[in-house]
């Protein structure tokens, strides 16, 4: 049973869409320029529009645009909103409350006044938009002594490498731009590009705080990137594939039955993978630069760390894309350990269209995936707002002395259980 909203995949949908649009246009041109008329050469444009390579190119472009808009506009704002609301509640306050009725122009202000609505007691979803608009209006200052070219390159590098993750990150079987065979490797590679940008940003700003922040990012990189990759190796032992979609498929099989409810064989339910999950989640918090590990921008001692000299939207870009990395990180944890988008489909409407039965799931795969990602992200937020920041030497100790041995143990156990688990009665 297909449970995904986007099926069979994003590219095919976009191809159908663009083919339809181009067909209408070329038909219109063909009709308005009949053979023998003075505008007959226009028919060439119509043929061009229906060329296969042109349609494929456009389909890719639309697929990428849909994915980036979905991730960078909708999910980014949602995650920021969720975090701000959640930690505000943790701190006994309401948090952001700007709503659509707070907008100071017609019709919102007029309507709010007429209905006597409190203008600043909304859900606060628009606050991040307002912050972004404010940052856009601010001046972009380049320090006089900064290495201007590198200073301007760094935010682009960070932002583009973050968007690159979403080229291979699936939200469901179909909701993915490119389903490449080694997508997991690609995602992790794109993930670890950003610290390079941080180092460049810190060094080129020509400021002591940013320099220390950039150096901290470089030192920290080695400490968490290695256990991160080693924990993934343990997952590969079970999955036998570097494709994230295959990894999710492996976890969809039922593990055991608790009454009528089947327990799926998520990776987190096995002994070695649980160790790997602990390592991976910890390293992922460092990768996202969340608070126990946000030492490159430790604002207490380094002002804003490597971000200090950035202003305006350049600051907004690198600051906001932290949430996009958080989304990608949470999504990766869900894919590797929590069964991705697989979930119980409670009820399926099956209306008959002509003679074929079209199954429509009540809770589609994409929604299951987002529910898991949001819950996991809230756990990350919860942790990061209730612990202090660790020191640079302490994160190196945690990385080298705790996480790497643990991840090696996970690999060892995973290899042993993958080989002899069935002989031992299905231990995993």
């Amino acid at each position, binding site marked *: 049973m297909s449970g995904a909203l986007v099926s069979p995949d994003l590219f095919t949908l976009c191809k159908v869409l663009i083919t339809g649009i181009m067909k209408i246009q070329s038909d219109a041109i063909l009709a308005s320029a009949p053979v023998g008329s003075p505008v007959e050469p226009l028919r060439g444009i119509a043929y061009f529009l229906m060329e296969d390579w042109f349609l494929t190119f456009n389909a890719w472009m639309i697929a990428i645009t849909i994915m980036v808009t979905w991730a960078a506009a909708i999910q980014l704002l949602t995650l920021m909103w969720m975090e701000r609301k959640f930690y505000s509640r943790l701190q006994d306050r309401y948090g952001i409350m700007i709503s659509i009725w707070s907008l100071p122009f017609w019709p919102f202000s007029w309507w709010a006044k007429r209905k006597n609505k409190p203008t600043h007691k909304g859900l606060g979803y628009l606050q991040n938009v307002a912050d972004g608009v404010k940052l856009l209006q601010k001046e972009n200052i380049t320090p006089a002594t900064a290495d201007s070219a590198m200073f301007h390159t760094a935010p682009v590098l960070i932002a583009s490498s973050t968007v690159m993750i979403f080229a291979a990150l699936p939200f469901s079987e179909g909701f993915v731009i490119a389903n490449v065979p080694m997508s997991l490797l690609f995602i992790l590679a794109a993930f670890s590009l950003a610290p390079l940008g941080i180092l460049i940003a810190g060094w080129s700003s020509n400021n002591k705080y940013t320099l220390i922040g950039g150096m901290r990012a470089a030192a920290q990189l080695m400490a968490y990137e290695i256990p991160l990759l080693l924990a993934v190796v343990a997952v590969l032992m079970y999955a036998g594939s570097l494709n994230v979609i295959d990894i999710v498929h492996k976890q969809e099989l039922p593990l055991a039955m608790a009454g009528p409810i089947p327990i799926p064989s998520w990776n987190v339910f096995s002994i070695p993978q649980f160790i790997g999950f602990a390592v991976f989640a910890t390293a992922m918090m460092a990768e996202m630069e969340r608070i126990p590990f946000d030492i490159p921008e*430790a604002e207490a*001692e380094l*002002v804003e760390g490597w971000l200090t000299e950035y202003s305006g939207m350049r600051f907004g870009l690198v600051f906001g894309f932290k949430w996009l990395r958080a989304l990608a990180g949470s999504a990766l944890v869900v894919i590797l350990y929590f069964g991705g988008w697989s979930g119980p489909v409670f009820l399926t409407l099956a209306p008959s269209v002509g003679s074929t039965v079209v199954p429509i799931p009540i809770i589609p795969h994409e929604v299951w995936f987002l529910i898991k990602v949001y819950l996991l992200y809230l756990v990350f937020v919860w942790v990061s707002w209730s612990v202090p920041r660790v020191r640079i*030497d302490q994160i190196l100790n945690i990385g080298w002395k705790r996480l790497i041995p643990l991840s090696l143990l996970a690999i060892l156990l995973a290899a042993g259980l993958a080989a002899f688990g069935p002989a031992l009665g299905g231990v995993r």
Partner: protein
Amino acid sequence: MVEFWVNMGPQHPMTHGLWNMRVKIDGETITDAEPEIGYLHRGYEKIMEVREFQKNVVLTDRLCYVSSITWSHAYCLACEKMMDVEVPPRGQWIRVISLELQRIASHLMWLAAYGPDLGLLTGLLWALRERELFLDLLQLLSGARMNQNFPRIGGARNDLPPDFDKYCFKIIKHFREKLDEYESLFHDSKIFRMRTEGVGRISRADAINWGVTGPNLRACGVNVDFRRLEPYETYDEVDFEPQVWKGGDGGDSYARFMCRFNELEESCRIIEQAVKKIPEGPYRAKAPRRAEGEGFARTEDSRGEALFYVIGDGDDRPYRVKIRSPVFCTMAATPIMLRGYKMADVVSILGSVDVCVGEMDK
């Protein structure tokens, strides 16, 4: 590796106020440190010479704006000794109550600042939330939330408001529950202990030699609390335990944190006893307008030993005033605490010292 100086201040998130901590770092390790103070010098000792004795209370309130009453009280005590004024018992008890309320409010402000220093912003909001309750009590007592202008030479400005004891009991009961929450947020947290234990260590001898006082000295295991040692007001009649670090070699950030944190509980105990024991009677004695002679008083401020030395020459204003600020002396010892630790420890050490720039620069 090249060593270089990094300015932490005067406009820096680490400094709670306007001062500059210059640290010389080798990579991440601090090799030298140098506090630069004086940005907030307002010439208190000189201004006080041209104002009348009673009117100086307004000034001394502003010495440390998070701990106003303790400073005004030290000044009033020095003036009373010079003028031979005896404060009536009710006045003394009112002072004890207001001092301890102010101490809790000041320590909560420190706790609120220590949280974000370590990256724990939740601590800021939680501590400020409870500080609000004690500011409400102070407002009930004196009419103002900050810079209360409450102690007077010869007593206190006004009597306790009706039902003050009930409000005190209610708020303290609530506060005790919240103290458990702070415990789980702060010193039960493994990462908090990682950041504070063994950091910023200063030996007992160094601390005494450099004039470190108050909770910072008691964290080194030295039992010096002027409320016990030289009881002023009615501190000899209340039962409380000066908070001294007992767990072996202290003197680190964690010991300083624990001493201050436990003082919150002790101050609650003092307030409870004081509102029960307070007698009826006048709360303020008439103080002379002019005075001649010398007055000297030292009290246990929220941050250490506050000392006032006032000389009168028969005029209605002091001839000379000397203020000893505890933070000023502690600041001289901070390079000893900082050397050899990491750059991230600057916030963990200076946050635990509890810097108040107003009284430091006078």
